[in-house]
């Protein structure tokens, strides 16, 4: 069985992380538009949960970015 070279494995992991970030971002965009619509309709109760969930999603994106950055440095160093 041929194992992938470490550089290719690194790229696959980075691609996976990127796809995950894109999915999280789509959820965040939907959340922002839904919260804005609700706010403009005069309902303020959705603002706090919207902000909390958005912050959690951003934290997840940041963690994935740090993962990509670290992986990138590791693979480069070999």
């Amino acid at each position, binding site marked *: 069985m041929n194992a992938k070279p470490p*550089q290719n494995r*690194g*790229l696959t992991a*980075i*691609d996976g*992380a*990127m796809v995950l*970030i*894109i999915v*999280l*971002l789509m959820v*965040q*965009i939907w*959340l*922002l538009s839904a*919260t*804005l*619509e609700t*706010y*403009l*309709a*005069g309902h*303020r109760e959705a*603002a*706090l949960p*919207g*902000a909390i969930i*958005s*912050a959690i*999603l*951003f934290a997840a*994106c*940041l963690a*994935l*970015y*740090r993962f*990509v*950055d670290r992986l*990138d*440095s590791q*693979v*480069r160093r070999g």
Partner: protein
Amino acid sequence: MSWFRKPSSTPLWRDEFPVFTADERYVSRRQFTKFLTLTSFSMMVGNLWILARSTLRRPATWPRVPVAAAGEIPVGGVRTFNYPAADDPCILVRTSAEEYVAYSQKCTHLSCAVYYEKAQNRLECPCHRGFFSIEDGSVLEGPPQRALPRVALEKTDGQLVAIRMEGGLV
């Protein structure tokens, strides 16, 4: 981005201009990931801005503005006026002998002026074919997502007086 890079790692400029062609793929992916993360940050800022606006907003005080004399408008007739500010167009409709309704005239989709369609007994936005119920201003059809804000009316000494806005961003 000194936050995410250890002091011992190579300088950023060396990463951005790699010697080997294969390394370029890493740079572009990492940069794209950084861009996505910054976009996520801006989404969060947007949500925090909505939260701040919701929390810090004070309850509005509404002026009392005479709109028309009761009976001045025929049944099915319409009168436009501005409420609460001079640049907030509203529409008053007499739906029956004793019933009057008034709404903001700005469509909740893209702020085109809505008008009363008597034959269908509904409010219509001509820009993108959005239709609103005359009873409560709710969306019947079309691209708008929110109901029209309603103007509360009071009958005082034979005058219809706008007293406050209901629904919408008030």
